């Protein structure tokens, strides 16, 4: 049990996928202008990242490793994640139209979210068990959502301030993200 607590805390805070591992920066910058879109994106990422991690873990463990064809890992993960996102999109559109409308444009955007791929590969690299992979991917996704929502909150306030013209918008956003990353370094000694 203690192992899982460590796993959760380290995945959310210490090894935060965005602020410590620098993955998924494009949606992090692109969808953080408004709190509303940021929460939408966070929800979509939790959903897709968990599903993708489970499926890729299964494929890796039962097919790639047993057949000794690990060199196909990257290409097969890309294929699986892209198909999965398409599938989920179609499923939601038919079955839960409200959620589909809420996630809107973010669902297809996740296809190209490197954080998803990153988490899947981390799970394999760390040789996690199925349960560990599940917990770690949910925690990484929550960490992504946390970073995104914190960042959106900051950006909504920064926009009201007197920002020098050359630094407006994305530039000040990147500086803010850097500071936020510095803050997250403070979690290093936690476990």
């Amino acid at each position, binding site marked *: 049990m203690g192992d899982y607590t460590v796993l959760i805390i380290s995945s959310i805070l210490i090894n935060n996928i965005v602020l410590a591992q620098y993955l998924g920066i494009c949606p992090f910058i692109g969808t953080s202008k408004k709190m509303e879109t940021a929460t939408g994106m966070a929800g979509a990422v939790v959903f897709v990242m968990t599903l993708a991690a489970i499926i890729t873990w299964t494929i890796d463990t039962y097919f790639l490793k047993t057949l000794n064809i690990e060199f196909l890992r990257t*290409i097969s993960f890309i294929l*699986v994640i892209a198909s999965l996102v398409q599938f989920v999109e179609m499923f939601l559109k038919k*079955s839960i139209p409200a959620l589909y409308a809420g996630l809107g444009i973010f669902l297809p955007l996740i296809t190209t979210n490197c954080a998803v791929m990153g988490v899947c590969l981390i799970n394999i690299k760390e040789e996690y068990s199925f349960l560990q992979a599940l917990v770690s991917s949910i925690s990484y996704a929550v960490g992504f959502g946390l970073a995104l929502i914190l960042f959106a909150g900051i950006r909504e306030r920064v926009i009201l301030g007197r920002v020098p013209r050359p630094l407006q918008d994305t530039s000040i956003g990147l500086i803010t993200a850097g500071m936020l990353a510095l803050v997250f370094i403070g979690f290093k000694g936690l476990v």
Partner: protein
Amino acid sequence: MIEAILFTLSLGGICGLALSVASKVFYVYEDPRIARVENLLAGANCGGCGYAGCSAAAEAVVNEEAPPNVCILIGPESVAAIAGIMGSEAGTAESYKSFNNCKGGSRATDRFIYQGLNRCSAVNALYGGKHDCHIGCLGFGDCVRACKFDALEIGPNGYPIVDKGKCVGCGACERVCPKSIIEVRTMSQRLLHLNTEDDALAPCQQTCPAEIDIPQYISHIREGRYDSAVDTIRERNPLLLACGRVCPHPCEEYCRRAIEDDDAVSINQLKRFVADVEMNSGRRLPISSAPDTGKRVAVIGGGPAGLSCAYFLRRVGHSVNIFEAMPKLGGMLRYGIPEYRLPKAVLDWEIEGILNLGIDHHTNVRMGVDFDLGSLVGAGFDAIFMGVGAWKDYKLKIPGEDLKGCFTGISFLSRMGNQEHVDIGRRAAVIGGGNTAIDCVRTLIRMGVEKVYLVYRRTRKEMPANEVEIVAAEHEGVEFVFLAAPNKVIGDDEGNVTGLEYLKMELGEPDASGRRRPVPVEGSETVLDVDMIITAIGQSPDTTFRTPGTRMDELNITRWDTIDVDPDTCRSNVPYIFAAGDGATGPALVVDAIGGGRRAARGIDLFLKGKPVTAQPRALLSKRHIPESLFTDVGGVGKSVRTPMPELPVQERIKTFVEADLVIAEPDANTEANRCLNCCRLCYDPDKGADKPDSLNAA
């Protein structure tokens, strides 16, 4: 190796199979037109249309929430193709343009000073902004930053200025403006917008029955942009030449310059000045109209209400036919107002300009005689506007009223207006105290009648006629007989009028209207030696068009013989009949009829577009004012002289029907325009050098 190939193939196969099964199982019906429309859109996902991407725009077009020309990047061929898919006319959708409604901007007094904030949304979030004015522009330019097309900039007065050429009507500025100062509207929406409590309105604009944007046109005059001034007036009033001459300008009574010991700005003379500039230039300014909607409206009565309604309906794209009972269009403007106040040539020029928009008209056709409701409906008119006026004179109901030499006011004036011959006498008495009576006495003076009396049963103070008109009649030598109630018309053996007997009156207790009621003095019969009498004691609409047994018979009529309509939408109890002007309100001002015509045009437009015909929310109707805009004092305003109205000398004008009031000269117009305080709702620009007032909160 073989495992790798097999694995890749099977993984691909499974994914493909799963997706194709999913697309079958989870298939959601989508209107095929959406895809076809989307193919015709630019595909740039630029957001210029205001929708989230091209697919959303296509969906909006198919759901008829957006016009076929929603995309700002595609050409007319693609618009026509989309319209073809949708089965609608390519041109029916009007383009949207951005407008800034705040004209005061930074001049409103500051309530708070915020350091370090540079966004409208930021200061608005903190107690509604820095200005005292809660509807005014904050001036930080959120709209400028939101505009992707470089069509907005913050002007020298601290509020945004729209470059109409660059504006594509995407609506981005409207969405970011926290004060709703920037609005993206079509021309039709602007033309038919009624004043509301939330608008940035100066007190004069709130008062004007036609709702003209007075500070705006005066500021155009001040800067020498006479064409823009005329266009601004035409957004609300198509009869500016006529109104510039005959309007008793109720707006000037609310002019803030007149609150302290100064005179109101001569608003109406400025209107006449720019209207005359356009006419004298011999060049008509172009008036734009929306694309045709294919709907047809019959306008019955070519007076100010009918012309105004026809003008606005035509400009928003409906096809209009005017039916007029008299030989020419103009109504009371032509047949009730004498030549010396409104020359027929001027009126003709103005009406021609309105008809040039593409309005058909038929004269000498009377409702209920030459045509009726059935024939109009049969001819395919979708709605009917009744601007029938109030042409029936009230009778005195005294003995001898039918003798030779007795006339009634409107019939006398209309015969004059029609250039018919009228047998006039040597000495004449006109009974009544309103504008019609004054028009009659001043007409009689010009026709060479030796002695003209005006007989009125109350005193000069109670006369409902315009003050300037009364003064002019006094100058022209009319003798006023006040506190006199006609009792009997005296005639000779041949039935000719020889005198008017009246009872002297004295003022008693105030009546319901607050005016002191005249009471006859016993035994005070006096005879005026006259051979001509005109009764001008008021009018009511002539309702003989109501043929019994037809739909017209169902039309509700009030006990004053006016058509009973909803004052907000001008709709009668018959859904497709609308009415305004004197015929719906009883005798009122020309400018009231013009405003009514526009309100009716709004109601008809809603009706023709199949929308509910309801009042505009929070509209400022029934001469209501926004209380916060009515100040009790204005600081910092220096005294200045109001430009007097130039007029022909009395000796010259009483011999002729040449126009008596003249237009002010250009330098005077400029001086007068500079007297305008450029008020808005809570702000105004006091004379240069004066301190800003701190009295606004007291108001």
